[in-house]
């Protein structure tokens, strides 16, 4: 297969970026999107040109490092997959593919397609955990948790922190990301001691980082590679209101 790529190139945080056109030829339909970029980079390297920088690591859809905005879709046209899992067979031969980094105020571009997502880390640092020191814990099975709750907590915990929800949101809101953590910990009895302070601190930090608010368009759920449900946003809102009044 052959493709024309329009790729965002930006030298560093402070430079101005632009789209540059590249050809990707003899691409096998079984290649992943990143393997296709590897091939383009190999050719660039041989011509002694600066290769296209993109973040990646596990290449099996779990580390959350990769994340490209592909022809207007976060992680490309397939539902429920990350960029590294996306195969070229889902594109048409001869297609022009536009590749951009995540666009959000809270995710500044570092270079080409790599953005700085440490705002997510700071949101978690503000309270996205259960405060428990090593060793000070009761026997694991001492607190029974209904299977349905445990399963729902797991659905939320499946978030890989890639940032697609922010990139696709017209408000650049981090509500889906944040609510997944709030919801997970609110569903488990272990998380109840800090449920009030947790949601308040995290919301405060989210605002501080420059993420927008949720206006219920649900593009985030649609584009989330782990199909995290917006129901968690509802639960987070409930937690937030509860924290204010009770």
């Amino acid at each position: 297969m052959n493709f024309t790529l329009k790729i965002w190139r930006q030298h560093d945080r402070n430079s101005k970026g632009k789209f540059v056109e590249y050809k990707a030829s003899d691409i096998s339909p079984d290649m992943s999107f990143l393997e296709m970029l590897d091939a383009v980079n190999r050719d660039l390297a041989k011509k002694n040109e600066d290769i296209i920088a993109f973040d990646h690591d596990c290449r099996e859809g779990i580390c959350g490092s990769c994340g490209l905005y592909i022809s207007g879709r976060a992680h490309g046209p397939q539902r429920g997959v990350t960029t590294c899992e996306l195969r070229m067979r889902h594109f048409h031969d001869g297609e022009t593919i536009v590749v951009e980094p995540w666009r959000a105020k809270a995710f500044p571009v570092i270079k080409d397609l790599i953005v700085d997502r440490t705002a997510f880390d700071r949101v978690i640092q503000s309270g996205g955990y259960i405060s428990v020191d090593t060793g000070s814990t009761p026997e694991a099975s001492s607190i029974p948790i209904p299977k349905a709750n445990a399963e729902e907590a797991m659905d939320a915990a499946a978030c890989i922190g890639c940032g697609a929800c922010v990139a696709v949101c017209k408000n650049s809101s981090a509500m889906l990301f944040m609510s997944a953590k709030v919801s997970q910990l609110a569903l488990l009895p272990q998380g109840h001691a800090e449920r009030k302070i947790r949601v308040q601190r995290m919301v405060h930090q989210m605002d501080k980082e420059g993420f927008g608010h949720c206006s219920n368009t649900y593009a985030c759920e649609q584009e989330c590679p782990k199909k995290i449900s917006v129901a968690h946003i509802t639960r987070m809102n409930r937690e937030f209101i509860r924290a204010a009044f009770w």
Partner: protein
Amino acid sequence: MVLNSKIPEGPIQQKWDNHRFNIKLVNAANKRKYTIVVVGTGLAGSSAAASLAELGYNVISLCYHESPRRAHSIAAQGGINAPKNYKNDGDSIWRLFYDTVKGGDYRAREANVYRLAQVSGNIIDQCVAQGVPFGREYGGLLDNRSFGGAQVSRTFYARGQTGQQLLLGAYGALSRQINSGRVKFFGRREMLDLIVIEGQARGILARNMETGALESYIGDAVVLATGGYGNTFYLATMAKYSNGTAIWKAHKKGAFFGNPCFTQIHPTCIPLSSDYQSKLTLMSESLRNDGRIWVPKKAGDKRNPKDIPEEERDYYLERLYPSFGNLVPRDVASRRAKEMCDKGFGVGSTGLAVYLDFADTIKRNGKEWVEEKYGNLFDMYHEITAENAYETPMRIYPAVHYTMGGLWVDYNLMTTIPGLYVIGEANFSDHGANRLGASALMQGLADGYFVIPYTIGDYLASTKFPQIKPDHPAFKEAERNIQELIKKLLSIKGKQTVDEIHKRLGKVMYDHCGMARNEAGLKKALQLIPQLREEFEKFAYVAAWEYKGNGLNWELHKEPLAFEYVKPSTRSYK
């Protein structure tokens, strides 16, 4: 040098308790006077950094990624072992200890393995308290499954994402300490050298990968938690960033390398389909609990698997190992699969695959049951191969997955360099020659949560540390050396990309140092690798041949060529 493993006295059940009593403690008020540099934020690194900070130490934590949560522990799927005996099926600390030593082909240190089995139960308690959503029974209690090579059900799991959930738990603990200020975290840093001053590990030199600057990090002890070296094989299940540099640099500074030959080849990976492939994808071996492995009885049988009747299939693991069946340890399952393929029984277009068939389980328990248990793995398989494994058997083939070898450490997890500790996959300690399933997560967290916080105190309390500043000559010298190395690497201007050279190195490793090894192959690899290195480093040279006598081979002498005035490039006369 005589290696002293420092195994404590006493019967094996009491060694760890005795040791914890006998080692020196750092007074609670004095802990804040010490700084510990922890490199890597996978299960071992995150749990160690968090636990040490909770104790009151100053911790500097660094990782290659932007965020600690992206370390490759996150990709572990199957589970984590602990002998809680919740299933009432005869499990015990002793049985986990025994299984691990035996599974490791009797090449692990008994005292370490026993300690690992002892603390494994605490890990589960810790993770549950952190909110790790382990799989549960309808009664609300924790579920267990049997896993890779165990006859009891002792594996705790969070769907097929156990590593992710455990890492996010440890990441939460680490985040809490970053928030408290006791951990200073630095992302996108690559460790490029270990700094040893007066025989003590006192810090590291790291490269800031955004700015390219070299930075010094000083501590009273250094803990490496940087994972294994499986990516030397190029095609492995390792993440692309797991490059093994940190332990290699420490090795060059004097830390012994233990059992480098022990590489685990995992039996259930998606087979290689062509040469552009950048990595191999593992599917949890929990699939072997319910899938049956087979090949056609007739070599070279290219029929659609559905058209091969039951009596013409060879369920070779069930045939060869009636009591373990498809659940034999990883090394055994991998070796048998390779043998079958080498004899021509392999399936798929390359002939390098065997079937893993769920038809019987689907018939017995229904598709929904399989979907609930393994849905994400079936989806992953479908995305990669475009095949529906509910309808046609999966194809699997072994791939490099884990390195049991690593830097040598004593019972305290300290290397041959005083003050340098190595934890998790990066050390060699607990798995002998073969790691059992669901034991890597266990060891990473055991080292980080429950071993290093005790043992490092003994060293700190009994050692004197001279004051060191970033302008110390040792740091300056390391910086100069690394600058020079980087300059040298960047000025090669070769014709092949780094990836291409890496691929070729991987092929040499795979062909001669993979699942089957012999003297001739290893010797060949020892010739091929230096040649490859030379090709990489000295792309331009004068070949001067020396006549060694009649009937003897000429000897090649190379004069490297440096270009200062003319920039080498592809010649063009257009």
